[in-house]
Each structure stands twice: as C-alpha cells, then as structure tokens.
C-alpha cells in the first residue's frame, strides 16, 4: 500500500519523517531547548533503537513524533501529513502507536478486552470489527487467554503487553515504545522485548524502541544516539558499540559482552568487535 512506483523504481515510502525538529519547553525562567535540530525517518518494517541517558530529550522527541507535542521549529510528518494539521491528528496518532513507561497509567478500563477496545472505539470502528481487532491484538502479544480478566492482577510484563495490544488494535504502522521496559523486572523486560521483536519480524511492524538499556539495542537495524537534545550519531549496532569514545562521551554503558570483547581487543587478543554473548563466546573459542 505504501510502496510507490516512481519512474519505474520501486521505493519504500517513509512512514515517519522528522526534519530539523526543535522543541522548547516554556517556563517562567525562560525557554529550555529539549530537542535541537533533530532529523530522522522510520521506514516500513524497521527496528530502530533510540539510546540516550536520562534527561537527554528522548521522551520529548517521542511525543513530537505522534503529535502529542508540536515542534517549535521544523516539521514532523507521517505519510507526508504534518502533525500540525489538526484535522488529521487522530489519523496520525492511530498510525504512530505509542506505549508509555508505566503500564498502570495507560489502562482506562477494568477489563482487558474493554481496554483494548478503547482505541478503535474512539476511531469509530464498528462493533464486530472491534471485537475482531481485540482478538487479533491479544493474539499478537500472546495474551488472548486473559481477554475477560482484569489488568490489575497481571505482572508488569503482562500489563505492558496489554498496553502494546491496546495500541495494536488501532492498526498502527509504527510502534513507539517510550522507555516501556524501564519499570519492569528482567523477566518482564525480556517478555516485552520478545513480543516487540515478534511483531517486528512476523507482522513487519516498524518499531522505535526508546531505552537506556544498551543490551536492548544489540539486535536493532539502526541505532540513534541522543545527547543533550541532539542526535549525535546514527549507525548499526556494530558501528555504535565499536566506538568506545562515543559511548563514554554520551554517558552510556556498554553491554557486558561488548565490555569483555573490548577489554580483550585492547590487550591484543581479539580483532573484531563482539556484540552479543554468542559472538563473544565464538571469538574466544577461536583463540586457542
């Protein structure tokens, strides 16, 4: 649907495009620039991770991408429609689904299926279709068995999967997870990440994962590194984690496998950068 043929060349259209976007919070003491001159785009089926330490403007950027905040300068557009168009804003928000940090603060109903139905109900989808979407969304996050239950009795990871399902029911093309794993325990974090990867691989859902956990970025197609409101670097996991100076400058923490790999290469044992545990194990085994 979003693949265009132009002069005989097939090009995949960008879902989301931000150009020279800046955002300033206004307060009595004056303006604080939270996002400075950021340009980025997300294409169909991509898995992009946005890294940055606390207070670097990640969340502000996320809110700019679906029109919850409007840029002070520059434009954000979804399928070519700017977020500043008040008539199209709900269409944009249904295409760019957003999952927040605290799962407790984004459920509106006491029963899971009613909560999932909330989005499509707002969009005016008819009853039978909503019912189908609810089933499909719960199936996609592996929570169909809980349909009639209450979110209150679930674990953090399960609650966050429900939050993902409630966004999926609006049929978005890109899923933005704004630090959605930050409040979860390691098991819950893994649960949510597995769900997101599954959606990305099986349903070709574009994902923008915002996080400060480095290990979540290892399997990304592309990593964006943010520092003081700016995107300071963009690249593949190998490029980013291979650049130890950049990581230090941005006050980020390398994943443990990268750390060991880096230490080994400093001492002349390894030549390649190792990303995952498996790669490291393989490289170390090849040593002898």
């Amino acid at each position, binding site marked *: 649907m979003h693949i265009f043929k132009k002069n005989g060349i097939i090009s995949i259209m960008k879902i989301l495009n931000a150009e020279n976007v800046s955002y300033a919070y206004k307060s009595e003491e004056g303006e604080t620039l939270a996002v400075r001159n950021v340009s980025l785009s997300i294409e169909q089926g991509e898995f992009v991770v946005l890294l940055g330490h606390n207070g670097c403007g990640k969340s502000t950027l996320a809110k700019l991408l679906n029109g919850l905040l409007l840029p002070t300068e520059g434009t954000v557009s979804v399928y070519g429609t700017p977020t500043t168009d008040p008539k199209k804003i709900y269409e944009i928000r249904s295409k760019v689904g957003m999952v927040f940090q605290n799962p407790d603060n984004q459920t*509106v109903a*006491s029963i899971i299926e009613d909560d999932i139905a909330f989005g499509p109900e*707002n969009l005016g989808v008819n009853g039978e279709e909503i019912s189908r979407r609810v089933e499909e969304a719960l199936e996609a996050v592996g929570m169909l068995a809980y349909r009639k239950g209450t979110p209150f009795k679930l674990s953090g990871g399960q609650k966050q999967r429900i939050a993902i399902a409630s966004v999926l029911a609006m049929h978005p093309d890109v899923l933005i997870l704004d630090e959605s794993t930050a409040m979860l325990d390691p098991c819950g974090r893994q649960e949510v990440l597995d769900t997101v990867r599954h959606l990305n691989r099986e349903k070709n859902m574009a994902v923008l994962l915002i996080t400060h956990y480095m290990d979540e970025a290892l399997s990304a197609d592309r990593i964006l590194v943010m520092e003081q409101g700016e995107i300071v670097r963009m690249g593949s996991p190998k490029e980013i984690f291979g650049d130890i100076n950049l990581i230090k400058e941005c006050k980020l923490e390398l994943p443990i496998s990268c750390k060991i790999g880096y230490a080994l290469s400093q001492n002349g044992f390894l030549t390649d950068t190792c990303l995952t545990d498996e790669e490291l194990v393989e490289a170390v085994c090849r040593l002898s």
Partner: protein
Amino acid sequence: MTRNVAFGQYYPTGSVIHRLDPRTKLFAGVVFIVCAFLASSYWAYLICYAFLFSVVLLSKIPPLQVLKTVKAVLAIVVVSVLINLFFYDEGTVLFSWWKIKITDGGLLYAGKMVLRIMFLVLSTSMITLTSTPTELTDGLEKIMTPLKYLRFPVHDVAIIMSIALRFIPTLMEETDKIIMAQKARGASFDHGGIVARAKAMLPILIPLFVSAFRRADELALALDARCYNATEARTKMKVLRFTWADLTAFLVLTACLTITALIYAGVIPL
C-alpha cells in the same frame, strides 16, 4: 482486600441474569431500593425476599457468596437493632431495667429494620455481582443519553466513572505502600487521640495526592495517544441490546413494585 475491589464484586457464571442489559439491572436497583422503603409489613418482606431469592437462584451464584456481602454492614445492622429495641416504647413491655424498656412493638420494628437493611444490601449486591463495572457505566451512559441535547458531556462523564473505578485498586495499593514507607520511618497511625491520628494521616494523603496527579497527567497523554475524542461518532464493541429476557425482567420488576406499593397503601390488607 485490594485484590477484590478490582472487579467490583463481579461473579461470572454466564446466567440469564448476567446477560440482562445493564439498563434493566439499573432499573432493578431503583425498584429494589423503593421496595425496601415501601415494604411495611412482614408479608411485604416475604414477597420481596421470595423475589430476591428467585433472582439469586437464576443467577447461579452460590447463596452463601451473596450473603457474604452483608458482612460489610453488620455493624450498622447491630446498632440499628439496639437503637430500635431500646427507644421504641409503644406496645406491651416485655422487659424493663433502669430506664431501658423493651416492648413487643420495638422487637417487631427492629426485626423489620434488619430485614430492610439486609434487603437493600443483598439486592444491590446482586447487581454488582452480576455485572462488570464497564457494563454498568455503559448502561448509565445510555440512560443519560437524552442529556446530550442539554450539552451535558455524557460520554466524558461515563469515561470519568470507568477510569475512577479502574484506579481504585491502583490507588489502594499505593496507599498501602506509602503507609509502609512512613511506618518504616517511624510514623505511627494507631496511637493518640482523634486529632493526633488525623494529623498522622497527612503524611499519607499528601504523597497519595501528588502521585494521583502525576498518574492523571500520564493517563491524559495515553488517552490522547489512543485518539480519545477523535470522533463524535464513537462506537462500542459491545452494543447494548434489549432482549425478551429484559422485557420479562421489566414486567416482573414492575409487578413486584406494584404489589409492595399496594400493600403500603393498604389496598391489599396484608
């Protein structure tokens, strides 16, 4: 305890009563309350209780489960019985000691009081036991629909109610956490007089309010992100349907109400 409030008291069995339109159940609630106040003789109560019992049977909820709901108001029942026993002084005196007289009239009246309070609680519990909070708010929204023409924000009020219900367990859990945190820092909540105790509540209430506001802020963003207010033509996943069962329920309820009213008015001499 926090765990139970999540669902209200909903006890799913999938019975006929559960499947009734929530509007019918809300009407039933009104009828029950009116009946409880109109019922003036033991005969009237017999009819009311017989009706209630048949509803319980139809709902397939274990009667003991229903009876448990009275526990919450047991203290009120006991106090009202004692007050009525001691201060009702018509009729022949059965027992007297110092200034206290117990009369047969008082005994009868106290008995009615017990039946009345129990009926109120049991019958309204039957509504919450057989319907989810969402169903009830949906029902209320439908009933309030005519107010739309007076520019009353019917749908917003319904959403506010459903969110309020949804956040009760969350905020209760939060209160527990704050109490424990304050206790860990040496606060005590069960010593001293009323004033001291009320003052001790402040360190609980203030953090609770702050956190509730923070939650509200995030929830507002989440509502926006999920296109709340996207269209005037909002749809519903579960469309309320008025069925034959609802019509029957309406007729039976009206009959029950009429009989109780007639007994009250003295038309039927029971």
